């Protein structure tokens, strides 16, 4: 499912957090949003999730404005992987993954057919096996490590069975091997993915396209290996960058960053 953001703005009081942003993400693409702290990445994601309402402009899923969907319909179109540090409750891993099918589990919705129920269970089972969290189901979410929590949240998003999945810094606070593991899972998903990423090298390896945010705008976008070498990119991040041939993988690059010399 494609995502079209047109001339999107969002203000809090006089402050313009998102300033006339437009972006077009094609079906099945993995798009990374990168940018310095406070540039508006998370706010853009919250706008796409309809958590906050835009002051101006539109977001469309497959040509239909998100404002035209109700909350149930939206939950069948896009799922979210929030930052794992925000998840604190005594719920178990299974409780949390089951929330993916929330709208269908009201008490009197017994009218659903056995087939639907089986399909839902299947979505949950599949998500559990993709992310490998089967051994954690009875654990309390608070007792898990950062990487495990992140996998649970990804499992939940997968179980929601939506064509679009939006992820907010899924590799934050994770050790190097967990980062790679998480991004491998995300890469294998056959969905339209929008990932806010801090780690530029990971964006280079895993994103089809990057959108660079700066002061609420998106001045640069394109293939990561091109964008990351642009002068403007280096100015936005206040760093020097250099692409080098990966010592581990033929034909792929790593990003070396250094202090900007003026």
């Amino acid at each position, binding site marked *: 499912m494609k995502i079209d953001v047109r001339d999107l703005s969002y203000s809090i009081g006089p402050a313009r957090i998102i300033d006339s942003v437009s972006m077009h993400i094609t079906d099945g693409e993995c798009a990374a949003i990168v940018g310095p702290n406070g540039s508006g990445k998370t706010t853009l994601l919250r706008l796409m999730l309809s*958590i906050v309402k835009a002051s101006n402009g539109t977001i469309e899923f497959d040509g239909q404005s998100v404002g035209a969907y109700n909350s149930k319909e939206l939950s069948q179109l896009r799922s979210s992987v929030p930052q794992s540090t925000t998840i604190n409750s005594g719920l178990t891993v299974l409780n949390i993954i089951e929330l993916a099918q929330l709208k269908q589990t009201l008490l009197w919705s017994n009218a659903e057919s056995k087939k639907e129920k089986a399909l839902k269970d299947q979505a949950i089972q599949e998500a559990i096996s993709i992310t490998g969290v089967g051994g954690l189901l009875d654990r309390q979410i608070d007792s898990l490590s950062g990487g495990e929590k992140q996998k649970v949240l990804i499992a939940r998003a997968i179980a929601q069975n939506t064509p679009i999945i939006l992820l907010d810094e899924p590799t934050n606070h994770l050790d190097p091997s967990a980062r790679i593991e998480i991004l491998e899972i995300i890469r294998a998903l056959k969905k339209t993915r929008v990932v806010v990423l801090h780690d530029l090298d990971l964006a280079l390896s895993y994103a089809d396209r990057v959108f660079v945010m700066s002061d609420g705008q998106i001045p640069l976008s394109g293939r990561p290996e091109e964008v990351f070498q642009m002068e403007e990119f280096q100015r936005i991040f206040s760093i020097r960058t250099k692409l080098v041939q990966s010592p581990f993988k033929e034909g792929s690059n790593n990003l070396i960053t250094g202090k900007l010399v003026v």
Partner: protein
Amino acid sequence: MAIALGSVWIPPSQVLSVLANEIFGAHFPSSSTNVEIIWSLRAPRVFAAALVGAMLALAGTALQGLVRNPLADPYIIGVSSGASVGAAAVMVLGSSALAGLSVSGAAFAGAISCIILAYFFAQKSGHFTDSRIILGGVAISYVAMAITSYLELTANPGELKGLLFWTMGSVAGVSWSSLLLPVIVLLIGGFWLISRGSVLNALALGDDDAISLGVNVKRIRLGLLVSSAALTALAVCVAGGVGFVGLIIPHACRMIIGHDNRKVLPLSGLFGAIFLVFVDLIARTLWSPNEFPLTIFTAAIGGPFFIWLMTREKSMQP
């Protein structure tokens, strides 16, 4: 069993006979004194205790989920303080001063006005926030407490004792007819809440997450507030300010079966009912034929029980 016990012991078989006669129209032999004690005095109060316990525990669970604060209890939105003003006004000034309202009628009016005020103050740009509803409720509670204190100062000792008894809760002297509305509200509100267990789970993860899972957060928050306010207001009308149940029973349930609200909601309703029937039994038998107000025992029994649960939970987790 709770009906059998009291200042006069009536054998359980007699109790069952009388109940069967009254409810199902059976014709078991029974003495008229027993019928009077059981059907007119004890059965309604045991039923009322169960009802109030279930209402407060359910409302407490819902409000703790709504404001995401483990210290929330049904009275946090100002319900009991508002009800106290109403009750105190009738007891001290006389019901003629309040357009002939009864104590419970005035308590209900006081409770409802406080909830509406708290909700109104909690609004910020069209929706209310967790902290504002607590702060609004607390502020209104203090104003209401000030009015109640003033009324207490002007009261004579007899009125004061009655008022104290009322603010600490009692189901003495309830009649069947006064329980009809609370039963209806418990059935509707309780069913609505219990069916929202999963939604409450989603809310526990935060508003942002709940929205992304498809919850209409604004609507569900209003529903939670209205249903728990209605449950609490009617519970207060029946039994006055029974403390502790709405705060501790939900936590006790979570310690026993975990945090899944699909289980916590029905279980806390059940536990609240059993707990308050038990407490009422002690309140009316310990110093028989005199009575204690309920809050003395909800706290005195509930507190140690809760601490025992806490230590048990600690020892279970390595």
